[in-house]
């Protein structure tokens, strides 16, 4: 376990150490990891290459809007699949899997046409509109799988008791699928924090871009300025790591309880 975590931590360590190297030096021969002296000024320099505060705020807004919407939409859709009967159910699952097979590139143009037509193509939360479609059918299937372990009689009994479909979802199904909800929240949170292809094609003004796209543009910096790029990478990764650290406890407790 420890050996495994070392493997996964190594890139993070290299990133942090690299961000403290002095810029404008020739690229090192081989691995020259330890910065001497540590160049903290790199972190201040990042804002000269991209409006960091603005972009971080855009990303935060995006995640705060998109994640709850994704969880609500996909958990409802998942319940619809599970409560459907016979062929309809198989058809729903089939369609979801089929949609998973559509390459992302095929969706770029229709999305831009649609959102531009609606006048929604250029806001910081434009990308969050994808959440209204569940972000990806994978999350829907994840919920369907989680619900399928709830005894069907339980859901039927709730309906017979006179609960509306909304109440069945809110009061019976969702509380029983808490681990799935947490997993979808974590996965979609990470997705919206790191996606750069969606905003690249959907969002016109650089002022409305999320921080991941800003970072993507920095990645073509010349080698001599790589420490500044890595400093930016640390600044973009840190909030995601922090969020995971805080959410970790509730994540594991919800998984263990089930």
């Amino acid at each position, binding site marked *: 376990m420890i050996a495994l975590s070392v493997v996964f931590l190594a890139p993070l360590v290299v990133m942090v150490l690299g961000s403290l190297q002095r810029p404008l030096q020739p690229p090192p021969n081989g691995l020259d990891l330890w910065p001497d002296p540590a160049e903290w000024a790199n972190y201040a320099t990042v804002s000269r290459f991209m409006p960091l505060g603005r972009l971080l705020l855009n990303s935060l807004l995006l995640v705060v809007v998109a994640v709850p919407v994704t969880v609500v939409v996909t958990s409802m859709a998942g319940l619809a699949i599970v409560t459907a009967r016979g062929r309809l159910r198989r058809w729903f699952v089939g369609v979801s899997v089929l949609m998973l097979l559509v390459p992302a590139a095929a969706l770029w*143009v229709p999305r831009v046409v649609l959102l531009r037509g609606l006048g929604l193509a250029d806001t910081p939360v434009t990308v969050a509109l994808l959440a209204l479609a569940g972000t990806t059918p994978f999350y829907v299937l994840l919920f369907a799988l989680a619900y399928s372990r709830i005894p069907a009689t339980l859901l039927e009994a709730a309906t017979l008791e006179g609960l509306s479909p909304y109440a069945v979802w809110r009061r019976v199904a969702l509380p029983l699928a808490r681990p799935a909800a947490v997993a979808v929240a974590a996965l979609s949170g990470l997705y919206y924090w790191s996606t750069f292809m969606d905003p690249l094609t959907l969002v016109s003004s650089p002022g409305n871009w999320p921080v991941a796209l800003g970072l993507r543009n920095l990645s073509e910096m010349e080698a001599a300025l790589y420490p500044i790029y890595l400093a930016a990478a640390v600044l973009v990764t840190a909030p995601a790591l922090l969020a995971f650290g805080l959410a970790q406890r509730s994540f594991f407790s919800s998984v263990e309880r089930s």
Partner: protein
Amino acid sequence: MKRTAVALPLLLVLSACSGESDAGDAENSLAPITVQIKAEPEEAAVYESLVNAYQEAGGGEIELVTVGREDHLTRLSTAFASGDAPDVFLLNYREYAPFVQRGAVAPAGPLLEREGIDFADYYEEPLRAFTYDDALQCMPQNISSLVVYWNRGLFTQAGVPAPTANWTWDDFVATATALSTGGVKGVGIDPSITRMAPFIWSSGGTIVDDDAAPTRTTLHEPGARAALDAMVALIGTGATPSKEELAAQGLPEQFMTGKVAMFLSSRVEVPALREQRGLDFDVAALPTMGEPASVLHSDAYCVASSSEKQEAAAKFVAYAVGEQGQTLTALGGRTVPSMRSVASSPAFLSPTRAPASSQVFLDAIPLLRHTPVTPSWPEVEDVIGTQLQRAFEDGVPLDEVLTEIQAQADPLLRP
């Protein structure tokens, strides 16, 4: 899905109706426009200062979108397909033909004439490269060429004389082998058609059967074959970095760290190399295999045909390629100005900033030729690059590679 099918045509109709512009003439030329440029973060700063200078000179509002090299075409293609294109965008001559073919470009010639541009002030070769269907489609901002970058320190250390203006391929190979000592390799050359083209032309060969309307590749014919054979022989001497070394570090970085003493590239490397403290470098003309030749590298400003503000777009392009605009971009170090007067001004030639021999770029101008301008060229270039890489890095026999190029690239060129 059903709802989308209904909504789509509706949206298209709506967006077509909203296209009418009702502003007067004076307002038109100052209308806010969007300009998309592919630029590394440091280059982006140069274009930002260009935009600021334009606005200070009384120009209209400009939203500058700078996108990384790899994302530029993706964003442009999606934007055009969905009718959300920028008013002005910068394109290389190797990649603009597909955009013209799909009717995405408003020919720059008449637009810029109205802005008072005199095309006689500009070098002809880039104008020719951006002429398609008998009309100037986009307005070139630079005229770069392929040159040899060389590390003066490594030359002195190995006791090798500096490159001369009219050196031959044999001199070049001898220099490269003499420089290959210890951990240093003599020369690095990317396996791409833009790097090979000048040598192919120099030895009397051609890349395609007809430069104006190509229908097949001719790399297997004697002239081109001789140049490629010479390249394989150079690689055989061990004076070039191995596949593993190239995988570990890019050529410009190997040059910066003194692992490679010479490499071939266009003007684009200058800003990065200037920032390397302690690196003493200069540029030299390409060696010749017969007739001297070099290959054009040029980007141009294109105006979108879908733009409702073509007048404002043309006004900005005229400023950017004008004397002030080109002086600003030349000072950034990355471009060889396409305007004759700026190219010969100190803004470009300044001997105090490396490379001392910037004149080499201007001397190459009469020798410049360009690769064919045809819509399928980007794909053809990919095919040739992949195959040349097999020959140069994996040691696949040239015969096999050339047959493969014919088999894959020729169908792309057939009309």
